[in-house]
């Protein structure tokens, strides 16, 4: 077809094949759009349904106890009184312990692997750290019961409390049974470590060599280079990794249930047993005979969900803040 013919067809509009093909492709495009949009909407819809279901099921407990559900420390299924404060407290405290321990360790491992380790050590060490994420939660719990708890009871806890004299502070006072918020926090630290370290490592490796060279060319030592050029560049990504670890710590169930001691009690001492929201649900859902008990567990589930959402929101905001005040890539 010559150029002249084509122009005539378009001008007259009476030659069928070309306009038809255009209409055909538009329909296909629209189908794609709708199908993909439907897929994409499934996820928020599922989330919404989950929240609605939790909200409806938990509503009787919320209505019965009001705000006290979140602030009361009494959880008594026999008397029909439910207050989730100890579980909320335990969830937050164990997660904080986990982050305090795992963050320096995870970022340190990542820095070692990205900047210090000889090339042939990198892969094996990275693989071993990643492998920590592949161990099932219940195995961590088992290890915790038979290895970590005796070690804590006989060595670490007496050392912290007596040798270092931290027993005078509220955080390390009281008897050392073993099962405790400290134990749960430490096992969580091991479990979130691979997440923090794997993401930090990827982010650190993504820092361009030119940034490292720019620092070295100014006469920076390796540590000055890491501190001045590498970490600032990777900061928002590292924070993202820490937040991912936090999200996992908040929701982790099995290992924590096996190590925390499962007691409804708010204690400032980390040596004391406690409870987390996730382990509370795991322990009691099977024996929740009354409607109110079940409703209370659902309400705990919703609370855990909301707290996780808030944490993630704060994290997003943090990453956004960090990204805004700097690490825009050149």
């Amino acid at each position: 077809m010559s150029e002249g013919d084509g122009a005539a067809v378009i001008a007259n509009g009476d030659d069928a094949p070309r306009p038809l093909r255009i209409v055909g492709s538009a329909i296909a495009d629209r189908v794609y759009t709708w199908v993909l949009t439907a897929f994409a909407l499934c996820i928020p819809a599922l989330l919404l349904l989950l929240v609605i279901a939790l909200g409806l099921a938990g509503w009787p407990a919320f209505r019965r106890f009001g705000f006290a559900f979140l602030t009361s420390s009494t959880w008594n299924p026999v008397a029909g009184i439910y207050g989730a404060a100890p579980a909320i407290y335990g969830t937050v405290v164990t997660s904080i312990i986990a982050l305090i321990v795992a963050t320096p360790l995870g970022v340190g491992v990542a820095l070692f692997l990205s900047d210090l380790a000889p090339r042939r050590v990198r892969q094996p060490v990275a693989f071993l750290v990643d492998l920590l994420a592949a161990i099932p939660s219940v195995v961590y719990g088992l290890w915790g019961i038979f290895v970590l708890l005796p070690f804590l009871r006989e060595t670490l806890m007496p050392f912290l409390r007596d040798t270092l004299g931290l027993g005078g502070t509220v955080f390390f006072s009281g008897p050392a049974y073993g099962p405790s918020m400290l134990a749960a926090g430490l096992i969580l630290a091991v479990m979130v470590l691979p997440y923090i370290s794997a993401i930090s490592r990827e982010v650190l490796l993504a820092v361009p060599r030119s940034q490292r060279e720019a620092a070295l060319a100014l006469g920076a030592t390796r540590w000055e280079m890491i501190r001045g050029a590498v970490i600032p560049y990777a900061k928002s990504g590292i924070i993202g990794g820490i937040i991912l670890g936090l999200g996992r710590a908040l929701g982790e169930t099995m290992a924590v249930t096996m190590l925390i001691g499962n007691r409804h009690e708010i204690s400032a001492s980390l040596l004391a047993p406690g409870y987390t929201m996730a382990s509370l649900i795991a322990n009691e859902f099977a024996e929740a005979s009354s409607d109110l008990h079940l409703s209370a567990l659902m309400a705990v589930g919703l609370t855990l969900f909301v707290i996780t959402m808030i944490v993630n929101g704060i994290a997003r905001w943090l990453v956004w803040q960090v990204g805004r005040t700097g690490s825009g890539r050149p």
Partner: protein
Amino acid sequence: MATNSSLTSGALASGGQHHVTDIQRLASEGLTAYFGSAAAIRGITLGVPDRSVTAIIGPSGCGKSTFLRCLNRMHETIQGARVDGRVVLTARDGKALDIYAKSANPIAVRKHIGMVFQRPTPFPTMSIRDNVAAGLKVTANGASTPRRTDEIVERALRRAALWEEVKDRLRTSAVALSGGQQQRLCIARALATEPEVILLDEPTASLDPISTQRIEELLHELEGEMTIVVVTHNMQQAARVSSRTAFFLNGELIETAPTRQLFTSPSDSRTEAYITGRFG
């Protein structure tokens, strides 16, 4: 800014384009650089005259950047890379030191021999001011007070011909600057620590013509007060900015001569072939 030498004051007054002094600020002797077992440059002996611009030209892969990176011990930061030979740095007080001597510390060496790279490398999380001051933090002669730092930053930015453009936004992020401004910022960062020598590795390769011209003007202005080595694949640039040019080919130094002489009457046929555009 001829501070502590009277040797070059005459040359400085005349703009420095054609002055040649006997002092070689930096001189390599039999320098061979390896990546693994392959030598990228072999037996390079080249002197860099004091307070002048020396250009290194040659086709891609001729080793000119590798040579430059040997001059401040950056080459060895690449895994598997190593260097044989000597590079003698003559300090302002006349003392000559081999930067590859056993006792020499590469970190200390780099504090005295600054470097600017092909792509601008501002630190993206730092402000313009902090970028310029970045080198001060790691050098012992750095500023002790914020005010002193501000003075040094202003002076470095003025020398890099960037001050007028950024003086009102020193606290804003450096990545908001254009590519050419970023490169001048990197030059200011290198100048701020008062190095003995500045090495530039194809500093205009990623810039537009206007920005390139500004950098060339800047090099011209710095000639006479700084010792500068610039690697470039652009022969016209070498002709415009340098007083001395070295031609590299296949990892070897073919010829070095005053720039005008090298471009008008090269003594080696390979140099002639390259500058007349027969290859490269």
